[in-house]
């Protein structure tokens, strides 16, 4: 299994955990699972559709993993993002980070999700009671060092 994926298939957190934790030197595995919520901004959400610029999203996810590995050396990372139609309660993203100790595992995991929200070319189309809307978050700029440092600050908070 590739540590980085953008896929239409249901995500398998256990597979990512196994993938990162197959080395004996790791004493901690942190995971993050993003899940489709039934409400947003007082709207009753029925489902989401995720769209990706897939080849670019793969490259940017790989870049984010390299950034995290630089910040927390020895950390092993995997991140899979789902696309297509997702029902309430389904996982949209799974991140697993293994490290010798818990601080680096938690930090690397948090860093990856913060960076995903900043620069990965994936979009959420929200369908709710009475309409639909494309969610627009951050203007993506991989050269924005202030944004990268903000992701690191949150990761270490």
């Amino acid at each position: 299994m590739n540590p980085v994926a953008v896929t239409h298939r249901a995500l398998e957190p256990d597979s990512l955990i196994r993938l990162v934790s197959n080395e004996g030197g790791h004493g901690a595995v942190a995971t993050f699972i993003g899940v489709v919520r039934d409400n947003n901004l007082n709207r009753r959400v029925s489902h989401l559709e995720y769209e990706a610029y897939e080849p670019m999203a793969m490259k940017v996810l790989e870049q984010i993993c390299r950034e995290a590995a630089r910040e927390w050396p020895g950390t092993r990372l995997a991140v899979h993002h789902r696309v297509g139609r997702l029902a309430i309660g389904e996982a949209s993203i799974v991140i697993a980070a293994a490290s010798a100790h818990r601080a680096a595992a938690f930090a690397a995991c948090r860093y990856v999700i913060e960076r995903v929200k900043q620069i990965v070319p994936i979009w959420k189309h929200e369908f709710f009671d009475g309409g639909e809307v494309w969610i627009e978050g951050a203007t993506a700029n991989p050269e924005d060092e202030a944004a990268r440092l903000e992701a690191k600050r949150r990761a270490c908070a």
Partner: protein
Amino acid sequence: MRVTVRLFARLRDIARSADLSREVPTGATVADVWRGLVAEFPEMAQYESSISSAVNADYARMTAVLADGDEVAFLPPVSGG
């Protein structure tokens, strides 16, 4: 020369197409392609200050010069995760 334009999310909805093929002059930049799109689809103008762009699936500046056959993508603010 010809370039392929990839559009996503709301930009794709506005153009009613995910892929467009456009003839551009030699030396054209990403910004030139964007200006052409805005002329064609005025609703896109609201994204002037918030889009990002990519050439051949790598982030690129609006000043990047294009080559024949390049794939230019315009990315509205992202919302993955």
